[in-house]
């Protein structure tokens, strides 16, 4: 009797408590994040002033996609995202290979930029690399423009400095003892170091590397304060484009800003989901 009651209680307790535990976080995320996306969507379809009785309009979306500045911003943001994530991935791969057999102290040291805010990194980049900065004082002149460079090199540098450690940590997490053991097993079977690299190490790291790079790309797509500090005057990134839109015309700019931010958000989410899909095929 008692044991039956206990089992029954155990059975009813099994699934719901976990759902109950998840509920507050799910609810808050739905409210805040879902609310944010809805709010932005609402702003983007708000009818223009004096636009008649309709409750919504695609005017802002049309205006944005007809605006060459927006298209330049979109292209610029995508280019920055691709270059930053590729550069970070490449450097992270080299660093992780060098660091994997070293102690935890060195690994921790390399992962420290994670704690420094983007804005500070941007300030540092200005102090060092801007015209009249330390580098120019020490070397006389800089071979290439970084801060405010048309190419966006400054933005790329900041994101590479900030996000490479994240990728290194990701890579080191799959380059642990298990991988080392597989490498040993392959070596004693006659696989040369380059074969081990191609057939054992690369297959183990390629997916986390791709997934991490996509996440970095998503971050760069939303770049805002970094281009504000050291981006070029033109083109803007998607976020600075939105900011400029609200600054130049507080009323009609709101809809365009929301539309361009939604484009950035959609691109970032698409990248994130693609990364997830890639990570999933690895499990299967």
């Amino acid at each position: 009797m008692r044991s039956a009651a206990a089992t029954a209680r155990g059975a009813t307790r099994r699934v719901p408590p976990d759902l109950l535990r998840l509920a507050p976080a799910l609810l808050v995320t739905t409210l805040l994040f879902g609310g944010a996306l809805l709010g932005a969507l609402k702003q983007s379809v708000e009818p223009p002033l004096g636009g008649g009785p309709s409750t919504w309009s695609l005017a802002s979306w049309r205006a944005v996609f007809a605006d060459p500045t927006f298209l330049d911003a979109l292209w610029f943001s995508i280019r920055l995202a691709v270059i930053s994530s590729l550069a970070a991935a490449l450097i992270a791969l080299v660093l992780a290979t060098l660091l994997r057999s070293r102690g935890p102290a060195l690994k921790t040291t390399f992962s420290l930029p994670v704690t420094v805010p983007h804005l500070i990194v941007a300030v540092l980049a200005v102090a060092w690399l801007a015209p009249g900065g330390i580098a120019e004082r020490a070397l006389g002149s800089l071979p290439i423009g970084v801060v405010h460079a048309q190419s966006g090199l400054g933005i790329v540098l900041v994101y590479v400095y900030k996000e490479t450690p994240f990728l290194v940590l990701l890579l080191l997490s799959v380059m642990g003892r298990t991988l080392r053991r597989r490498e040993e097993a392959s070596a004693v079977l006659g696989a040369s170091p380059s074969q081990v690299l191609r057939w054992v190490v690369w297959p183990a790291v390629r997916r986390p590397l791709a997934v991490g790079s996509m996440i970095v790309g998503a971050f760069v797509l939303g770049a805002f304060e970094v281009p504000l500090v050291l981006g070029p005057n033109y083109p803007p990134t998607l976020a600075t484009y939105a900011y400029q839109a609200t600054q130049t015309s507080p009323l009609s700019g709101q809809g365009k800003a929301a539309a361009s931010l939604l484009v950035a958000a959609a691109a970032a989410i698409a990248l994130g989901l693609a990364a997830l899909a890639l990570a999933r095929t690895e499990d299967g």
Partner: protein
Amino acid sequence: MVERRLPRTVGTVAVLLFAAPLAVLVVQAFAEVWRYPALLPQRWGLRGFEVAFEGDQALQATLDSFEVALISTAAAILLAWPAARALARGPARLRTAAIVFLALPLLVPPLATGTGLAEWFIRLGLADTRVGVALAHLTVVLPYVLLVLIPGFNPRLRELEEMAASLGMGPVRRLVSVTLPGIRAVLAAAALLGFLVSWSQYGSSLAVGGGLPMLPLTLLPFVGSDPNVAAALSLLFLAPAVLALLLASRAAREAL
């Protein structure tokens, strides 16, 4: 041999990556006059800090940033604690789906989240308030805290809790004497990361709280106009990260 060489390597890397870049910030913060092309300032002084804290806008911004970071981190931990416990086990499919959904806000530009939230916060009277900004930050602080916390509730901790329960320990005693000690390090890391994420937020702070500027909003205009003041404020802005660094290095040394 390797062991003896290692600390030096660590030191070199730390200097190259942090100390050297940051040293410039310190120099610039105390450089009243630093004309090109001199490598060192012509005159040292506290002007940067004096200008930065003229009026009490910067001081207020610092206190606001601190309060907002504390509120959003505390709220995130309260929400993430039970969720992490649930997500540390259970069917893999549901788990992945929940984690993906909860982590989605990380990917979206903070300015987008903030702009969307502002639409509602203005009506609710939350715009330009500390609670409003903290809520906007919570959108990203929560997933970060959650992702750090999940591995903390590993099977080993659960086995210890089961052991404690089997010895007749009640839920509260179990929390205090088994769960909290077991998860202390992870919890500290989560709290630290949550605080830093909120402290560093720019886009969402601007969109929701442009009228109640947080520290980074106060700092940015000076970067182009007055590097001396910008450096002084940057040092203040960097303080929690440096603290985190010191704590992390102490933890790393203990781990060795």
